[in-house]
């Protein structure tokens, strides 16, 4: 069962309705059952790994808690290391054995001998493993008390709106909510539904439409040369944003109508003025996780400049590898680390230039320039993220720099799966996304503004949005719109 499926459209109202009438203290049981059902409906074998991981996390959590209660807490670190090792081992077994095998054999010149060693292609394993590891570290640090109720811990790990693609929530935010879930009132319901509708719009109308063009160009990058390729890279930059943000909005909206408040995952990332700023706004739950559980434990910026740069590179290399078991993802992560380090290294020079040219830092033009440069760097890095190999990424980049502006006018753009009408809808969708981000960036939350309007405006917007998704959405026979990009991670 996927978020974009008719089964889910039946499943969700049933879950919400029953959740509404169940007494508060039993809601977590219902949500755990439905979360397991949701996951099992995708893959039974993966569910076995999930349940085992939950059981292990529960056991290690209790052990850490008991050890804390002992006199000197001397075994705590050992238990934590063991717990993390076990869970990372599961992650590697499910996701990285193929990559390791392929890399080792490639070094030995026998790349074609790879047979594929991954034990299971487990859905969402990267996401829920980070949740588990974060939980265990929090218990070890004493930030939270280990959860005694295995169902509640199981729900934290498997909560169905988040299980496949996050947000990677923290236990200290989620577990208390399972104890005291909010009662969903009419305003929460409306708010959550609007967020879900927005998520589906981003996914079905924008992301999946852009994907048609992008997939066509990337499937045969030697053919598309010039601006058609450049447009494909730009489209992918927005595709992955609207796809992932779309999912996140749906997940957050669903959580809200179930009485669970989940952290935001995106905050206008392409309006960032720096790469560091981008990562404060992109996949926030992951970047804060990496900051809290990797960057800071590595020493963060407390151990000198060189160490800080090394830590940044480590964090982004890990981030890349977390996203996918391939060197293209590692390069993507390293590029982001490299952009940040270079940014820090060049900061004195940049400051000097700003002084020399008397640039007003807060001027619109200067901020726009920074946003554009950041956007182009992010766009460049996404090529590696999307490409199937480093060689393909280089071809795409090379082709993007071929100057063929006439392709914008001679119909070349319409040869890659989107005709002029679909292209027009894609552009309108992008304009809506960018405009929404621009107003959100300035603290204007459109959803809340809509909810403050009179009933007929709310009705018109709601109905128009749903009808637009149904009509302009990319779904139905011939399209595989069910899978979200980040689901593969």
């Amino acid at each position, binding site marked *: 069962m996927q978020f974009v499926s008719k089964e889910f459209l039946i499943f969700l109202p049933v879950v919400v309705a029953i959740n509404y009438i169940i007494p508060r203290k039993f809601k977590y049981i219902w949500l755990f059952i439905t979360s397991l059902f949701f996951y099992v409906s995708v893959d039974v074998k993966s569910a076995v790994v999930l349940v085992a991981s939950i059981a292990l996390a529960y056991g290690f959590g209790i052990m850490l808690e008991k050890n804390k209660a002992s006199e000197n807490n001397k075994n705590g670190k050992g238990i934590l290391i063991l717990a993390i090792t076990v869970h990372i081992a599961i992650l590697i077994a499910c996701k990285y054995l193929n990559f390791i095998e392929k890399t080792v054999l490639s070094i030995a010149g026998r790349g074609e001998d790879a047979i594929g060693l991954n034990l299971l292609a487990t859905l969402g394993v990267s996401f829920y493993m980070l949740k588990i590891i974060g939980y265990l570290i929090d218990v070890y640090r004493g930030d939270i008390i280990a959860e005694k109720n295995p169902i509640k811990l199981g729900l934290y790990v498997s909560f169905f709106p988040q299980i496949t693609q996050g947000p990677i929530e923290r236990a200290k935010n989620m577990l208390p909510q399972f104890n005291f879930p909010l009662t969903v009132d009419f305003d929460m319901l409306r708010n959550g539904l609007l967020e879900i509708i927005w998520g589906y719009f981003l996914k079905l109308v924008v992301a999946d439409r852009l994907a048609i063009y992008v997939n066509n160009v990337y499937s045969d990058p030697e053919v598309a040369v010039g601006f058609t390729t450049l447009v494909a890279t730009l489209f992918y930059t927005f595709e992955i944003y609207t796809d992932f943000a779309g999912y996140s909005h749906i997940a957050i909206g669903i959580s809200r109508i179930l009485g669970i408040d989940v952290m935001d995952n995106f905050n206008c990332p392409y309006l960032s003025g720096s790469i560091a700023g981008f990562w404060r706004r992109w996949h926030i739950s992951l970047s804060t996780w990496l900051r809290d559980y990797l960057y800071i434990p590595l020493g963060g910026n407390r151990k000198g400049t060189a160490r800080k740069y090394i830590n940044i590179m480590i964090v982004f290399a890990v981030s890349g590898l977390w996203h996918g078991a391939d060197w293209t993802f590692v390069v993507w992560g390293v590029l982001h680390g490299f952009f940040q380090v270079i940014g820090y290294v060049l900061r004195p020079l940049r400051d000097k230039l700003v002084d020399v040219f008397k640039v007003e830092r807060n001027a619109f033009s200067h901020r726009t320039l920074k946003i554009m440069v950041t956007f182009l760097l992010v766009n460049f890095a996404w090529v590696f993220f999307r490409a199937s190999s480093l060689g393909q990424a280089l071809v795409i980049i090379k082709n993007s720099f071929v100057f063929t502006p006439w392709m914008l006018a001679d119909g070349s753009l319409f040869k890659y799966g989107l005709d002029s009408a679909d292209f027009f809808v894609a552009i309108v969708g992008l304009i809506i996304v960018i405009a929404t981000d621009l107003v959100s960036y300035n603290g204007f939350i459109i959803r809340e503004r809509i909810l403050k309007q009179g009933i007929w405006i709310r009705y018109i917007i709601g*109905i128009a949005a749903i*009808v637009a998704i149904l*009509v302009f959405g990319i*779904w*139905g*026979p011939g399209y595989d719109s069910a899978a979200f990009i980040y689901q593969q991670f």
Partner: protein
Amino acid sequence: MKKTLANVFKSIIFLCLLGLAIATSIVILKRKESDYKYTDFFNEAKKDHIDVLFMGSSHVINAINPVFLFEEYGITSYNMGGHGAMLQATYWELREALEYCTPKWVVVDTYMLEKNIRYLDNREEFDDEDEVNTSVEQLHLNMDAWPLNDLKRAAIDDLIQDESVKNEFLYEFIIYHNRWKYLNEDDFKTITGTANRNRLFGAEMRYDVELDPELYPDVTESDLLTEDTVGTEYLEKIIELCQERGIPVVLTYYPFSADTKDQAAAIRAGEIAENYDVPYINMLNLDVIDLYSDLNDHGHLNVVGSKKVTDYMGQWLSEAGDFADHRGDDDYAYWQECVENFNKELDDVLFDEDNLYIKLDLLNLEDYNFVLYVNGNSPVFLDSFLKRMIVNSSMSDKVESTSGPYILIKDNSTRQIYEACESEEIYSMSTALGTLNYRPVEQYFRLLYSDEDPDTNYLYDESHYLEDIQLIIYNDDGEIVEHDYYKSNGGNYVR
């Protein structure tokens, strides 16, 4: 509590409005081909205005024109033929149709009887992927118009194997929501019920001429269709269905350029008809059409062929059935309106048509009078296809044995045909244009004038003296409605 009730009420209102908006979108976005074909079926069936149902494939769509049938015999009918419809699709089409009307006769064409394809979406049974897609797509024409109910579910279950493809028929919006980019005026007019619809009661007329249809060997003993097929199974079901309901049924095999397997299927259809004691008309064996002028392509009749086949069926039904003549009946005014509408369409096609072959073919259908003149030594005299068309009009072989000049005057108002070639002259021809006289003078000059207006030479115009073909079409009032000049360009006659 009061607030909760208000919220529930508001939610219900919202859901109702949303449902209305979605329903409207579904209606607007739905592909209209099927509605276009069947809107008048529902309208006329409701009024019990359908005497005969013509069932079958695209051969039926092009062969039977209910407008001709009404105009000539006063019989009302509906052409239920479906593009690419095999007999199992025809069976379900008939089941659906009989839910709305009980005709006096059902006419079933048995083309594709030999097909042994169980499911229309079974990729293993078709030669290639495109055929499956076409088969499924064409079934939408037959099925989309019928409302979603148990009968339609049963039909789709029986015709389609793949569950996801079944859903495409039962919940069409999943495929038609993508039509937003093709919307036109008619899509929106559907809401008000004013969308364009098929005014030929399900038929479609074609206007090309297949000049050189392929001819196939006659069927031999070894070619006969002896095995039962899905086609024979469903033909039997169709007959049984009609017989259960007490509706007389007649089987047909409409004419076209039939290959050996088609001829074998036609013979088998006759055997089935005999087994069930129902009449059978195999037009492959009857001299109903001229293969060289009445086909649109090798398998489908053009409008002239359709007229002939419809006439034949009209004659047969008139003799076999007890049909009231609805012409002149005020209750059937809409049928008369459609007759006039179609005759106007025919006029438009005739006068818009540039292709000389098609034009001459259409002139055989229309009541217009015409003069055809061809200069001496014109390439026309080497063009057997065009000469065949001329022979069809002149009813003589004169044009076959001359190198021109040649003139044909076909005057329907006096039911006279005049013909002359080489140095022949004709005087005192009684026509709607007057009493005409024809006299060839030299290569680029000839006389055609009337006694009433001897100063007007219809066949000479200085600006067109080099064009070797002239076609003058005039009406019964003696008014020239078109005077065209054609130049032969290697058999491509340019107006």
